[in-house]
């Protein structure tokens, strides 16, 4: 139902081009919880912004297709795109705690999109807003609040309720819980799972907190250097990582239930995305690298029920 095909995007400056999303393809089916994990600077946020056509200058989409129910988002004109937003796709941003307007009441900023873009009357809009706020556990008396009167967790819930207003089929969430405390984070995540059961939407969830992602997601994609290096079912990726980068990440992850004696970090630093990468982008940090990794770029291959891009397979 939601598909990204060979998407290339990046940031164009006068003297260089940062190629942040390199040939990324993925598919989100109904009821999927698709998780994208990667280090900071691997291009995961750019991917989301590009897929939703929200990438602002100097960002630029070079090529690719983003299909939703067969329609290519990248070829639509602005009014067609406006029609689709909120109804088909919605976004919960990274700093949603700060993405609410501080001088407008919660109910007014939530109903704004309904009234302006989708022709609701004020009364109908308020009613829908109230229904959605109740879904995320916010009582009607909070509708007249201003954002500063709500705690961080409540504000995050408001933003999630806002994304749900028009019952979109796919919701993108870019680090929705990063600025929150562990306990609040847990309750928000549970809220999302509950809502998914009730409203049956698919989610694309982006975070750098990999233990969280493995716990929540049904499918997972590991991103490195602007590319997906491993895509598969979350549990099988966790129990049997194939790409050396995924292996490294899992070995670097202190876990609360395991009693591992030693965690190892991945040596080196992430690759500079403004460079023209030849060979495997991960080879300099990889302990399995051999000659072929220098010269030939590994393509995504379907091995053991999942996609991996590594010359070892």
């Amino acid at each position, binding site marked *: 139902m939601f598909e990204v095909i060979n998407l290339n995007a990046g940031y164009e400056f006068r003297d260089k081009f940062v190629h942040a999303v390199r040939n990324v393809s993925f598919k989100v089916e109904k009821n999927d919880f698709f998780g994208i994990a990667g*280090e*900071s600077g691997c291009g995961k946020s750019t991917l989301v912004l590009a897929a939703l056509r929200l990438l602002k200058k100097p960002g630029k989409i070079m090529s690719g297709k983003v299909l939703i129910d067969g329609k290519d988002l990248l070829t639509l004109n602005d009014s067609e795109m406006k029609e689709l937003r909120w109804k088909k796709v919605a976004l919960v941003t990274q700093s949603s705690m700060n993405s609410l307007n501080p001088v407008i009441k919660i109910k007014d900023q939530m109903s704004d999109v309904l009234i302006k873009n989708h022709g609701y009357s004020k009364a109908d809009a308020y009613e829908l807003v109230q229904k959605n706020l109740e879904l995320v*556990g916010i009582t009607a008396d909070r509708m007249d609040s201003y954002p500063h009167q709500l*705690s961080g*967790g409540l504000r995050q819930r408001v933003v999630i309720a806002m994304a749900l207003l028009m019952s979109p089929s796919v919701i993108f969430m870019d680090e929705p819980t990063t600025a929150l*405390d*562990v*306990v609040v*984070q*847990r*309750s928000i995540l*549970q*809220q999302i799972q*509950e809502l998914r059961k009730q409203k049956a939407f698919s989610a694309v969830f982006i975070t*750098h*907190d*990999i*233990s*969280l992602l*493995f*716990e929540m997601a049904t499918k997972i994609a590991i991103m490195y250097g602007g590319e997906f290096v491993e895509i598969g079912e979350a549990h099988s990726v*966790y129990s049997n990582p194939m790409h050396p980068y995924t292996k*490294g*990440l899992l070995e*670097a*992850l*202190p*876990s*609360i*239930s*395991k*009693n*591992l004696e*030693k*965690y*190892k*970090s*991945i040596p080196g*630093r992430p690759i500079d995305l403004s460079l023209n990468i030849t060979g495997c982008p991960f080879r300099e940090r990889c302990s399995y690298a051999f000659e072929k990794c220098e010269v030939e770029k590994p393509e995504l291959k379907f091995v053991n029920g999942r996609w991996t891009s590594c010359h070892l397979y």
Partner: protein
Amino acid sequence: MSLVLKISNIKEEFKIRKGIKILTLKALRGVDLELNEQEILSIVGESGCGKTTLLRVLARIYEPTDGVIELFGNKVPKKLSRSEELEFRKNVQMVFQDPFASLNPTKKIEHVLKRPLKIHKIENESEVIESVLSDVELTPPDNYLTKFPHELSGGQRQRVIFARAIITKPQIILADEPTSMLDVSIKSGILNLMLKLKEEHQISFIHVTHDLAAAKYVSDRITVMYAGIIVEEGNAKDVVNNPLHPYSMLLKEAAPDPERSSDVNMLDVGEPPSLIDPPPGCPFEPRCKYAKPECKGPVEFREVDGRKVRCVLY
């Protein structure tokens, strides 16, 4: 094992003006803590529980409203002379959360590391610098000395900050969430560095974190703080594997874990109490599913199975 740091009944209050009223925020409400030689003690808790305030009191950034700090068995007076202050700073160093903000962006690494040597009049500058850089695994040192902070990655910067902290040969390092701003792939490198410094340089750490998994890995003992008081303290593995206080249980259930199988219900778990007028009894009582009438009264900090818990259940 000998004690290097002991604090008793530390209280810290902040005055907040609200219109014409002046309110008192009780950030720390009587904290006792002991730190042994060559030990990593982690303090965990939600934001606002007072863990960073405690660290700042220990570092003498804030002056405590009440309580006693003892360093190597000697009471640290409220006012120190310039030379005593220097001696204190030499022994107690700090590492902050944000490696991007805690290095001067206009100075080279060499300058950053020379400052403490100049201040504490330590000789053999270049040798000392070289040895601390190799201690924090930034080798060869020459590659880093002439660099500016922006040329280094987050993990490398945090290593430089650790190098700056150990250059005065301190016995205690106070680390405030040293890994929370770092990527997963380098987080464990910094935790391993802390373990190495503890072993090789006999440094004790007070490590403030909200990451229970990291605390379990790196520390010898864990202290769980809630609303300005300590609710549980004990051996790190025990506290995480088998938390006794209901708040520690909540923290453990909330922590992300890929191997979780059971679904716990945490949709509505409430919020920490206001520290302006905290409840007299157990501060966790309003959120606690085991709450009893006696929780409203003062609750003692008791020894249970080799650890200490502030809860009426035990």
